[in-house]
């Protein structure tokens, strides 16, 4: 019998373990529908703010060794506009990513989505290139605790925190989120990085510093998932440089219940979702696993 590749991230059930990572392709419901058709188990939106954000001037995304460097600047149409856009959604499993500085930002945005059909929220506590939000929030465990508490008290759907590597110990951020009642953790976001053009001596990104994604950060992300999984009893979604089914399995063995796919889309396009799903399924058949949950975190037994 062909193994079923559904997975459970806490109370969120996904028919397939490959999710679209936040920031990638996520501003149109029509594109979500296309990606869902292509095999994504869930779609995480671009991080939404209270107001529309234009983001930074180009160059915002460039290729570097083994990945991409981006400082898009969290451009997004704003939570109210976005909520209206997805109000017609019935069948697509959408997770809404939110970015803000204080509790009120998040609770305001959650109010916009009260009637929307969504699977949950993902709090962006880890974008490394915009001031006063993202990683600057994630680096402050006390603030994280406050935000998660207020979001949890208002949200009717599960809440995930996306963490990254900033200036404080990310495990303290995870701990704060767990203590405040978070439902799951996504790890990790891009890592602060830059590239300088040798002809002109100029930093290439307009924001100078951006976030590194892609294969270059994968081993770091695997380590983080493994550490979180070893220390906390919390569902984890792995993210960082996943490019094929082997990468996905590696994250699952480290402790992820699902994985997020991003940069590889630039290289393989959206067929990569079904490619990874099929690869996982074949691997499970060969190794006689009947469900994903049997594989989650098994590298920890050694």
């Amino acid at each position, binding site marked *: 019998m062909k193994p079923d590749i559904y997975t459970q991230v806490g109370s969120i059930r996904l028919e397939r373990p490959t999710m679209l990572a936040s920031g990638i392709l*996520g501003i*149109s419901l029509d594109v979500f529908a296309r990606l869902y058709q292509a095999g994504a188990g869930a779609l995480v939106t671009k991080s939404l703010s209270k107001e529309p954000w234009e983001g930074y001037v180009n160059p915002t995304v*460039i290729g*570097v060794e083994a*990945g*991409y460097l*981006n400082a898009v600047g969290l451009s*997004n149409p704003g939570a109210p506009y976005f909520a209206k856009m997805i109000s017609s959604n019935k069948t697509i499993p959408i997770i809404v990513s939110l970015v803000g500085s204080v509790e009120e930002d998040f609770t305001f945005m959650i109010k916009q989505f009260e009637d929307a059909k969504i699977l949950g929220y993902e709090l962006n506590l880890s974008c490394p290139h915009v001031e006063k939000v993202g990683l600057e929030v994630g680096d402050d465990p006390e603030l994280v605790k406050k935000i998660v508490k207020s979001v949890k008290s208002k949200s009717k759907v599960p809440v995930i925190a996306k963490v990254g590597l900033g200036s404080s110990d990310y495990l303290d951020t995870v701990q704060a989120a767990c203590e405040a009642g978070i439902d799951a953790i996504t790890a990790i976001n891009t890592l602060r990085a830059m590239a300088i053009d040798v002809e002109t001596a100029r930093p290439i990104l307009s924001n100078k510093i951006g976030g590194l994604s892609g294969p270059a950060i994968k081993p770091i992300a695997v380590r983080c998932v493994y550490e979180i999984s070893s220390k906390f009893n919390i569902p984890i979604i792995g993210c960082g440089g996943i490019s094929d089914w082997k990468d996905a399995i590696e994250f699952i063995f480290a402790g992820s219940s699902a994985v997020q796919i991003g940069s590889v889309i630039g290289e393989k396009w959206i067929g990569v979702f079904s490619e990874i799903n099929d690869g996982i399924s074949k691997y499970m058949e060969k190794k006689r696993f009947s469900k994903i949950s049997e594989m989650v975190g098994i590298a920890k037994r050694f």
Partner: protein
Amino acid sequence: MQRDFDKPTMVKIEKVIEETPTVRTLVFSDDVLSAVLPGQFAMVWIPGVNELPMSVMVYLEKGRAAFTIRKRGVASTSLYEVKVGEYIGVRGPYGNSFAIRQGNLLLVGGGTGLVPLMRLLTFLKKNDNVTVLIGSNTKKEVFFEKMANQILANNKHQVIVTTEDGSYGTAGVVTDVMEKLIFEKKFDAVYTCGPEKMMYKVVQLASSKKIFVQASLERMMKCGIGICGSCCIKEELVCHDGTVFDGKYLLSNKEFGYTHRNKSGIIENY
């Protein structure tokens, strides 16, 4: 090599051609961009200013390519003002290209939308009978008429220029001339690039006569490689699925001809 490919390669501007008082062509040497397909674009970095998606202009010399730019906003004006000897960064080519048909071909371009069409001309076969419609608002803003005639020297062809103020060529807009042409003569394919309202009319006209038609679209672009999502038009990404789309598809896409997204992703009317 995908990853090196997505990092800007610096090229030196070797020649600047004044096309009109507001349009210039910047010529440089680059083996990759000199060989792109018609419709493909590059992301062009003006160091310290911005990065813009630009259709790659043909330059009739091996190993060289060009960008043709009209000064408008801050970014396009700084690219327009780049001088011989200065460097710009290029990454790409990205996107698909026109499907090249044979027979009686009609190309309809407005302004810098002529760029992919000029490149397309260099890909046509000797037996093709080619009609090029060039739309402009006034005489001094007409460009590429000579170049079109030069590329098509060995083809049966005609280049028709229209100006809205009637100061040169046929008075009026290109789509009026096109309407007449397609009633007089049978065309095997129509290709268009220019202002979206113009392209919408071109696609409608061609479709009404059941002629194969393709248009090369423009949208707000950031990454150029299909990951940021800024350039989506319904479910399609202009940078990855386009820039060239079949007219048949475009007429089913409710955003074509009517709306585009701004920098934050909000849909705005044209």
